[in-house]
Structure formats: structure tokens, C-alpha cells
């Protein structure tokens, strides 16, 4: 039973050992890099095909995990924000088989729409390109996006065009070991993970069309406690939880 703010970060980089063993990805988090000189960082950026989306968790490029993201029966997730790098890359959120970002015709994954570009939502801040997050995305996704128990989710990363932040990088071929932070492909997703009894409350809020936030989860718990207190003193509650909230 908890509400935790979680973040998942993907880095398009592998170690010299991964490279030697023929893997363009690394499992179990960040790779350990052993720099050999100021011009040899020990890290390599594997080739990334242009305009071909791949999953940042199990897509076979960069830092990967073993299984794709999937919500368990006792979990509930609220997406807060998403960002990527370089500016000419894009990220899109996928829940089961549906993408969040689409173009005005409703399509996604086309040459005109691969999701939210790094120009609009760069990660990290500050960054080599001096870009800042667009004000409309400063507070992330509004309204937030929910991932319900049992749903699979993923983040698709697309290198929309070549060149990187300064036009010097060629992502279609391997880069390294002399690389800099500004050239490293990145993706970042921030979310709130709710599990246990709190996930049940989150589902209850969802049914009542009340936004699932940590404040509203607390509020709902307070209402439950207050109702119990009213019951303990044998008086009816003047507030009837969610119905009252809507009209307050």
C-alpha cells in the first residue's frame, strides 16, 4: 500500500564489453563504463535507424530490461511527464496497442507524428542544446494519463531525423568511444505508481471521474476515516464522499 513517484530513464549507450559481445543493448540498468582516456569514454552509441520507432524497455537498443512494462492486478499508474533527447527525436506512450500522441488525422507513427519531440520536452535540463521545456508541457501531461491494472505499457522512441542537437552526429552508424553527453540519446518518463489498497481507492476515484492525484487519494482516505468516525459516534455523515465532491 503506497503511493510512490517513480521515474524510468533510457540511455542509448552501451559499454565496450556489450559491444565486444555483439549486443547493441545492455540489461539490468545503466552499463558500467570504463574510460581509457579523455577521448575514450568507454561508451558507444549503437546504430539507431531513422524514423523507426522502438520500445525503450525491450527494443534492443541501449539500456533495456527483460520484460515490458505491465501493470499487476494491485497496481495503478498515473503518467506525469515524458521527455527525450536529442531535439530531433520523439517519444510516444503506448498502452496495450494504442498510442497517446497522434496527428490531427488520428494517425501515429507517420513521418509527421512520432510523439512528443525533444525540442518541446528536452531531457535533461539544462542540456547541450540550451533548450527548455515548452510552458504547456512544464507540468507534464494534463490531464494525466492512467494505466490500469492488467494493461501493458511502453514508450516508443524514434530518431525522426539525423544530426543530433548540433547537426554533427550520425545516428545510423555506431558512435564512440569519443562521445559527449549532448549526443547521447535519452528518454525519460515520470509517473506515480500506486499499489495495494491505494490502487483500489484510485479505481474508485476513476469510477467517480475524480482525478487520481496523491492529494485526492489522501482526501478520499480522509473521507473514509471521517465517515467511520461519524459511524462511531452514531451520527450520519454530512458529507457523502464523491457525490458531494462533484458539486462542491
Amino acid at each position: 500500500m503506497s503511493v510512490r513517484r517513480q521515474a524510468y530513464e533510457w540511455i542509448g549507450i552501451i559499454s565496450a564489453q556489450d559491444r565486444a559481445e555483439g549486443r547493441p543493448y545492455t540489461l539490468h540498468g545503466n552499463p558500467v563504463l570504463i574510460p581509457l582516456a579523455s577521448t575514450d569514454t568507454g561508451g558507444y552509441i549503437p546504430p539507431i535507424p531513422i524514423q523507426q520507432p522502438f520500445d525503450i524497455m525491450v527494443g534492443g537498443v541501449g539500456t533495456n530490461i527483460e520484460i515490458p512494462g505491465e501493470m499487476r492486478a494491485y497496481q495503478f499508474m498515473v503518467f506525469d511527464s515524458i521527455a527525450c533527447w536529442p531535439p530531433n527525436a520523439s517519444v510516444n506512450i503506448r498502452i496495450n496497442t494504442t498510442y497517446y500522441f497522434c496527428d490531427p488525422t488520428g494517425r501515429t507513427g507517420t513521418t509527421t507524428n512520432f510523439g512528443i519531440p525533444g525540442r518541446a520536452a528536452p531531457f535533461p535540463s539544462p542540456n547541450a542544446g540550451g533548450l527548455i521545456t515548452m510552458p504547456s508541457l512544464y507540468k507534464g501531461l494534463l490531464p494525466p494519463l492512467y494505466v490500469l491494472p492488467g494493461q501493458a505499457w511502453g514508450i516508443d522512441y524514434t530518431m525522426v531525423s539525423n544530426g543530433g542537437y548540433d547537426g554533427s552526429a550520425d545516428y545510423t552508424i555506431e558512435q564512440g568511444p569519443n562521445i559527449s553527453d549532448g549526443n547521447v540519446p535519452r528518454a525519460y518518463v515520470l509517473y506515480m505508481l500506486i499499489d495495494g489498497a491505494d490502487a483500489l481507492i484510485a479505481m474508485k476515484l476513476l469510477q467517480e471521474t475524480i482525478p487520481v492525484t496523491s492529494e485526492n487519494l489522501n482526501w478520499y482516505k480522509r473521507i473514509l476515516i471521517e465517515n467511520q468516525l461519524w459511524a462511531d459516534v452514531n451520527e450520519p455523515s454530512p458529507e457523502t464522499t464523491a457525490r458531494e465532491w462533484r458539486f462542491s
Partner: protein
Amino acid sequence: MIRKLFYEWTLTGNGIVGSVDYPVAGQAFSIFNSGFGSLSLARPGGTAVQAQTQIGELLIPYVNEEQFIVIDHFGSTPGVVATPAFSGVNLTTWVPNGAVQIDINSTSYYQGPQNVQSEGISGDASTYPLTQIPQLKIHYKLRPSVYVLPEQSWDIQYTMFNDISGYIVNNTDGVTTIPLTTNLAHVFLQYWLFEGTDAMICHRLLSLGIPVNVANVEWYRQQLLVSRGLDTETWEYYLKVSQKYRELEERRSEHQKRVRTRGGSHTL
């Protein structure tokens, strides 16, 4: 008593490098008791204590019966690629590519999408020190805060993914020494320590479903003072407090012009 406390951990150079002077890359270690870096802010000048043998006692942060801790914020050194810079045989610049994890008892706070423990939050997501202008986005804020209850132990684990020892041993730059003046990594932690009756109030707030923060603890204390002489051990009292908190919250919302975002939930 309520205290807003800070803890800064710094890993600096230690002169000529030995094989056990620096943390093993890719392995998490405690910033409190691993023996690496500055042991405590209380040490004069933040003296670096590198070797494990120099520590007389391994201290594990533990919350006593009369305490309550709210971890509010942390940050660490940003960057991914090591980009070592040197002057002669001395290393002058290093990027650790580090991540911070919070442990409470034997449970880690951060987990990955496959529901196993992750390395935590990177320095790029939660940066320390802050060098950015206010318009830039801070990608990670610890909201809601983390509570550490009495009789729980807690720890901040830090993992560095760029191998400093490997670089010193294998580099072709001619670097053999990391001077004491070279900062290798920082971790910053901010938390509130509630003690005595304030810690008891924290428990009351927790049981009422009210967020534990300084403002709410002080408010609850005011309620107790207002009720002086009355019986505060009955359901009626807690009911009254609960109602008053609801009124307080409404006044705060009105004052700050914040209303809960309505409708607009989105599922796919």
C-alpha cells in the same frame, strides 16, 4: 521540536589511488556508512574519509521511538559520460553517472517497470548542485514525500556507473593521482526531523489521513491548545479535528486559488 535538516555527501580525490579507495562501479553503496566520501556534514570542513578502516563505527540511520522523519528532496551530480579532464598526472574533472535510491528497512523505494528494484533517480533527473535558471524544468521532485516511521532504519544508496578505479588503472592519459581538491560526486538530501510531541502529532495526522508536513503539525498543535482541558481521547474529538482540517483545506485552496482539476481523466 521540528528541524529541517540537510545532508551533503561528497566524494573527493584521495591522492594516489589504491584499489579500495573508491566505490565499485555499478554497485550501490550507502552515503552514510559505506566509508566512501564525507562521513557527515558535522565533520569539520566536510573532511573526506575514504578508507573503511578510518571509521570507528558504522552508523545506520535509525528513527528512534520519539522521532518521525519526512524525506523531502534529494539530488546528485548530473551527467552520463565520464569526460575525464586532467592536468599532468592529476585528474581534475570527472562525471560519475550516478543514481540515488532510498532504502527503508529492507525495501527500496524505486523500482523499474518490471517491478524489481532499480538503481534509482539519476543526477540528470534530480540535479545537485542546481545551476539552471528557474525557467528550466526540474524533472524529478519527491512528491509525495517519504515518511520514515519510528523504529525503521533508512538509508540513501548511491550507484556510480563510470568506473573511476578502472580509469586510473587503465588510462593512457598518464593520470595517476586524484587530488583532494577534485570533486568526483555529490549527493544532497533534505528532510524534516520531528521529535518528541511533534512526532506523536505526526502519528495522529497519519492515522487521520492528513499529509505530514510542518504546516499540518503546527495546525494540529494549535487544535490541541484550543481544546486544552477537554477530553481529546474520544472519537468526537478526532471527528472535530477531521472536520476542521477539511475547512482548513478549503480555505487554503481558496487562498491559493487552487481547485482540483475536474473531469478530464484519460485512459486508453
